[in-house]
């Protein structure tokens, strides 16, 4: 029983983080059918912003809000710098510009800040543990679960019940048709990048909270996780991204519990083997969206 609860908390907290990462990636992919490879850098920007405002003496929540805001601004900036100028031209062009922008941001961090890890300010709650029904667990896991529940709820409401959400879903299904109906394309795309930045910023703080430091390559793993989660969940649907995130967390956590100490170093090899098996079984991902997946 204790073990089951422990396992559940681990899966839900890791899965919540993965799901938010994946959602941030797929919200842009859904509309443009283009993967934003500079997505990990949104997390990096949130981390370094937290580091830079660390000495300011502001309340932590204000600092965190500034960090998330910077991730949102960087998200919108990505659209203007890497996507908008070449969006209509070719998929390859955007692939390269988004990689280039990612490299540029990472190298800027290397050059202007440091290749070494930098400490970020974190509230005391992030290093505390609590005991629930005999299970000792870090408070930040519970914070992550709560954040995931709230954000996924708000996100679902936004997509279903607001003007922006309906317009975004229409644009994601058939971009050309949505424009023809009068949906303002650029505004919708910028909004998608802003939401992507918001999710990356929040999940970035939670992610960095696990280790307490930020390095220029901090976003690489979240990008990979988000990408894999969306691929196994189904790149065509937002629900697929969330499902993929939780499934990936379930696999990782199960391996953490079952692999021996020597094998644990190779955990990712096991994870990716399973991912390959899932994709052999369901090449389009677990949830097939009815959308065509083609650029429209």
């Amino acid at each position, binding site marked *: 029983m204790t073990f089951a609860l422990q396992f559940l908390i681990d899966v839900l907290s890791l899965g919540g983080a993965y799901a938010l990462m994946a959602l941030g990636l797929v919200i842009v992919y859904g509309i443009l059918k283009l993967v934003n490879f500079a997505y990990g850098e949104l997390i990096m920007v949130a981390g370094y912003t937290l580091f830079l405002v660390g000495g300011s003496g502001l309340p932590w929540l204000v600092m965190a809000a500034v960090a998330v805001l910077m991730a949102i601004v960087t998200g919108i900036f990505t659209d203007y710098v890497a996507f908008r100028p070449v969006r209509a031209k070719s998929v390859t062009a955007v692939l390269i510009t988004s990689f280039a922008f990612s490299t540029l941001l990472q190298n800027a961090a290397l050059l202007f800040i440091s290749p070494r890890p930098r400490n970020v300010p974190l509230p005391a709650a992030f290093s505390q543990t609590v005991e629930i029904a005999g299970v000792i667990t870090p408070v930040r896991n519970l914070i992550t679960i709560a954040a995931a529940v709230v954000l996924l709820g708000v996100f679902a409401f936004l997509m279903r019940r607001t*003007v922006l959400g309906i317009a975004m*879903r*229409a644009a994601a299904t*058939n971009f050309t048709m*949505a424009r023809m*109906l*009068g949906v*303002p394309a650029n505004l919708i795309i910028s909004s998608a990048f802003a939401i992507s930045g918001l999710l990356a910023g929040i999940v970035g703080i939670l992610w960095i909270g696990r280790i307490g430091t930020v390095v220029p390559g901090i976003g690489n793993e979240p990008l990979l996780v988000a990408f894999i989660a969306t691929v196994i969940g189904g790149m065509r649907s937002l629900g697929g991204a969330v499902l993929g995130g939780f499934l990936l967390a379930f696999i990782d956590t199960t391996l953490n519990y079952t692999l021996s100490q020597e094998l644990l170093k190779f955990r990712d090899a096991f994870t990716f083997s399973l991912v390959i098996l899932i994709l052999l079984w369901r090449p389009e991902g677990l949830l097939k969206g009815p959308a065509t997946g083609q650029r429209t």
Partner: protein
Amino acid sequence: MPNPSLKVVDVAVEFSGLRALNGVSLTLSPGEIVGLIGPNGSGKTTMINAMTGQVPLAGGQVMLGDKQISGLTPRKIALEGLSRSFQIVRLFNNMTVLDNVESAALAHGCSLRVAREKAQTLLGEFGLSPRADDLGASLSYGDKRRVEIARALAADPAFLLLDEPAAGMNEAETEALLHILAGLPKSRGLGLLIIDHDMSLIMRLCDRLHVLAFGKTIAEGKADEVRRNPAVIEAYLGSEAARA
């Protein structure tokens, strides 16, 4: 104030040197139904694409009253009051029928509440209320067409351009559609341009006909007159009759 007329003036469209439309002029006034007919490949769909800004013009212009709308983006033209449907239906497949219709009203600046009411009313008119919460992809072919027309109407267009709205519908569905379409000019004051191969539908619905062949106008006028025009019988009805 009544809406101004939609005037297509001497429009030409080229696809890599091939003239798909060659100096076609057409006027659509509020409150009237015009049928655009012609054999396959005569340029009917290209005509609608040219009017709604989906293909660039090689010559001529499209005017809404005194305002030139050719050269604007499809989105701007939509906001000027031109709505259309497609030969191959383009619904938002993973959205509900209600959301599909709502999206057009929202894009034209309605509030969420107004858009929802408008969508529900339209679905009622089209007999689609029972399907409101179903996904676009799950509908029958005929229902998809009706949702598409309802969606086009949710934008409160001044002009509605329908590309083969009855294609794939059975007789009863076509009959119901005819009834709805015939009432639109009066109830909404809009001008309706309709392409269809169903000549009985066209003859019963349209005040005027405009006949294209090889990208040129070969006849226009009252439905009965056009039907007796030898050039039309030769180019269009003749070939239809020959096939049958």
